[in-house]
């Protein structure tokens, strides 16, 4: 059996002696005997070498695709080596929430830097230390916007289905209504939005670019929302943010998003990173940890967890959220990624995503897979499929390619800076074989 208990049997006996007990069982005298078990019905423990073998065998049952054209909420971007190196540092891994500020300046400063970068990406005034992921960030944003008489949350039906589902789950929990704003030609239907906005609406959530990859007219939609006195929440892609109008420029009150593209591997869906930013006016409604700058008793700059009066450990059932942890290591991952890329590098990555996606869309069209929707897109787009999507994907799989995601009878493709021209050409060739064009 493997073990991480350093004491020997003899030492344990001496320690029991010191306490005045005869056996380990005596430690559990308070546990009613009827409930006790004498063993756990699990396989015997293994050595490190054996465990490695077992885990590698399980990992081997997964298929790692060398070429990926699938996004839909999880994006295959290049991760600079410095990112992995920094976030593997043992102290960053094994520290807990920086409750003791004096010995946690490293963690606190990294979060402060993260908050600054998120403010820069979104154009907003304040950001928190992160939440679980983009979907829960959207749900927490809806809770921020709720007011006594305005409780209804409107969500664009062109948002990611899992984000919609999460917002619904959180809102149902608190007994508030969620209404989907329908999609027209792949984008949020602005007329429908106007007709749904009323005095009971707290907020509207828009995803930019939306689930179909299209760039929404976010500023115009925001204006409609504000005209009816509701708050405007935007969920953005952080890579696209290098190019697109910021949420602040679109009038957003709260900006959130999935931070996974900023240096986190695909990881079968997690851990990812939810980022949240807002206007100055909404700052004290942010959930979760927030780091602020202050000075120590010598007047030196120092960072602390701040605005804690919002939080569960102080306010209990009156807290703005129950969230306690954040995704600190993922936030650091994003910071290191953004530092390594710099504004120039991030713009270049975004521009390459956009350029290659457009190159791919044209090639796919020639291969018999035409774009389903008109309109500007970033790095994702939906095509029709001349043959059953599953047949198409099976074919690609045989060549080590993870194709787009089948949705609504078509296919949602994603192209990033990692995909080379040769890969895209190859994809188009294979699709041509399938479609017979």
């Amino acid at each position: 059996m493997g073990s991480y208990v350093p004491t020997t049997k003899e030492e344990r006996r001496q320690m029991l002696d010191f306490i005045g007990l005869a056996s380990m069982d005596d430690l559990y005298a308070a546990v009613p005997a009827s409930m006790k078990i004498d063993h756990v019905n699990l396989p015997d423990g293994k050595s490190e070498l054996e465990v490695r073998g077992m885990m590698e065998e399980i990992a081997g049952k997964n298929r790692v695709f060398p070429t990926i054209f699938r996004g839909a909420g999880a994006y295959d971007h290049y991760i600079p080596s410095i990112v992995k190196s920094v976030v593997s540092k043992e102290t960053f891994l094994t520290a807990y929430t920086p409750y003791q500020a004096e010995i946690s300046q490293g963690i606190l400063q990294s979060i402060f830097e993260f908050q600054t970068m998120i403010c820069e990406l979104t154009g907003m005034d304040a950001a928190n230390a992160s939440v679980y992921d983009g979907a829960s960030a959207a749900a927490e944003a809806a809770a921020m916007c709720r007011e006594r008489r305005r409780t209804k949350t409107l969500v664009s039906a062109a948002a990611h289905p899992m984000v919609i589902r999460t917002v619904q789950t959180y809102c149902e929990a608190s007994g508030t209504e969620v209404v989907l704003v329908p999609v027209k030609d792949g984008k949020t239907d602005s007329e429908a939005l106007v007709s749904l906005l009323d005095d009971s609406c707290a907020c509207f959530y828009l995803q930019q670019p939306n689930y179909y990859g299209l760039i929404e007219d976010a500023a115009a939609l925001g204006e409609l929302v504000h005209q009816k006195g509701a708050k405007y929440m935007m969920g953005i892609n952080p890579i696209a943010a290098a190019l697109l109008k910021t949420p602040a420029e679109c009038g957003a009150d709260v900006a959130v998003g999935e931070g996974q593209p900023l240096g986190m591997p695909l990881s079968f869906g997690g851990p990812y990173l939810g980022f949240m930013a807002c206007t100055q006016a909404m700052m004290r409604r942010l959930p979760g940890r927030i780091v602020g700058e202050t000075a120590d008793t010598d007047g030196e700059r120092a960072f602390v967890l701040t605005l804690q009066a919002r939080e569960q450990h102080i306010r209990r059932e009156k807290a703005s959220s129950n969230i306690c942890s954040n995704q600190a290591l993922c936030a650091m991952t994003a910071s290191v990624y953004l530092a390594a890329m710099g504004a120039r590098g991030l713009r270049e990555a975004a521009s390459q995503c956009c350029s290659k996606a457009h190159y791919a869309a044209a090639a796919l069209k020639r291969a018999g897979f035409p774009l389903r929707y008109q309109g500007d897109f970033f790095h994702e787009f939906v095509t029709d499929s001349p043959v059953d999507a599953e047949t198409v994907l099976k074919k690609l799989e045989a060549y080590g390619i993870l194709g787009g995601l089948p949705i609504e009878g078509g296919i949602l493709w994603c192209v990033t800076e990692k995909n080379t021209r040769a890969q895209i050409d190859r994809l188009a060739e294979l699709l041509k074989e399938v479609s017979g064009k």
Partner: protein
Amino acid sequence: MNLLFETSREGHGCSILPPCDVPVTSLPETELRRKELRLPQLAEVDISRHYSALERRAHGVNNGFYPLGSCTMKYNPKINDEMAALPGFAGIHPLQPAHTVQGCLEVLATAEQYLCEITGMDAMTFQPAAGAHGELTGLLLIKAYHQSRGDTGRTKIIVPDAAHGTNPASAAMAGFTVVNVPSNDKGCVDLEKLRAAVGPDTAGLMLTNPNTVGIFDEAILEITKIVHDAGGLNYYDGANLNAVMGVVRPGDMGFDVIHLNLHKTFSTPHGGGGPGSGPVGCKQLLADFLPLYYAKKAGDGYAFVQPAQSVGSVKAFYGNFLVVVRALAYLFTLGGDGVREAAQNAVLNANYLREKLKDTYEVAFDGICMHEFVLTLEKLKKEQDVSALDVAKTLLDHGIHPPTMYFPLIVHEALMVEPTETESRETLDAAAEIFRSVYEQALRDPQSLHDAPTTAPVRRPDEVAAARNPRLRYQF
């Protein structure tokens, strides 16, 4: 030290991407951001040194003793991190077809099987990303259960006053009214007050056992029966499972739904505050309500199934998967006996340290403790004006991460000490010596404790000013 933005120099940078190999497509001017994006401009060496400097200004389990009560800061085995980084896990897209992710599904299903065995539950979801997230999920299961039976009057969740703050906060988020029940003088549930609190409006009870003062509530079967008899369900906050795993199972104590903290009990690193993982286990009666995407054995392989009356999703995808990978590697390593050994030694270490400290410090509750114990510094505060905070800050100068301060709320000037099983006797002896010397220092020279720490990277920060005039980002 400098912020990244202060080290930044115009024109510096890293070389990461090749030139674009397709014609450049530009988006229309009207779509583009006008505001300049100010990110740091740094060479790779600058980034490397910046974070090395930050690392020196932080404290992890690798740096020293970390007896932070209720957080189970046990050692984080390195094999687990290495396994989580395998391309066969880290490189898998969450929306790959099922036949290409059989290994991932096996991880989820196997971890579920192991953890259900340890906790006495029938089914488990890994979607919740942390303990509080698990609490919300578990409470939604309770809510859905009552609603599915047309039992719509059950609107209240009972929470003892010694509970973690997340308990009442989660109950409120799940749309329940919170009923706080005072603890008795032993820090346990007051049975009479509980009996008075339950009724036809009781949806359930949230409880930690061992409780937050580190005591196993002997009346647990009676407690859970009182709630069941009133038609409510029992929720187990798994924060303290490390004390009892392999010895007694929440499922056998009468709990219907639990959350675990893989980042506490199952050795996955805390990451400076996350990512954690807060799986929720339940008895069969709640299994149909679990979140979407439940991994299940199907024929020779595994598949995701959607529980019939699922409460929905609390995040995208299936949870913090790589954290589950780490926990599974840990479970493989320990096996059944190792799980029990870990718990026993966690309790042994706590009692050993408690025994060593009890003549100097006042222990809040008598008797054998579980994996943690609570000291009260009320006397020191009254007589020397030295607070729990002062003692904690002085410990920083000795290389010890202080215990949890001012929790549970029912103990004045509390320090909550949880050594965990991965500390040696030498470490405990040395820590006891330091704790004792700090106490003596408090009697001799109280002012020196107000001045602590003096050797940490910074002195005490002005938290009041930070909250009054929030500066939450760097101003360029």
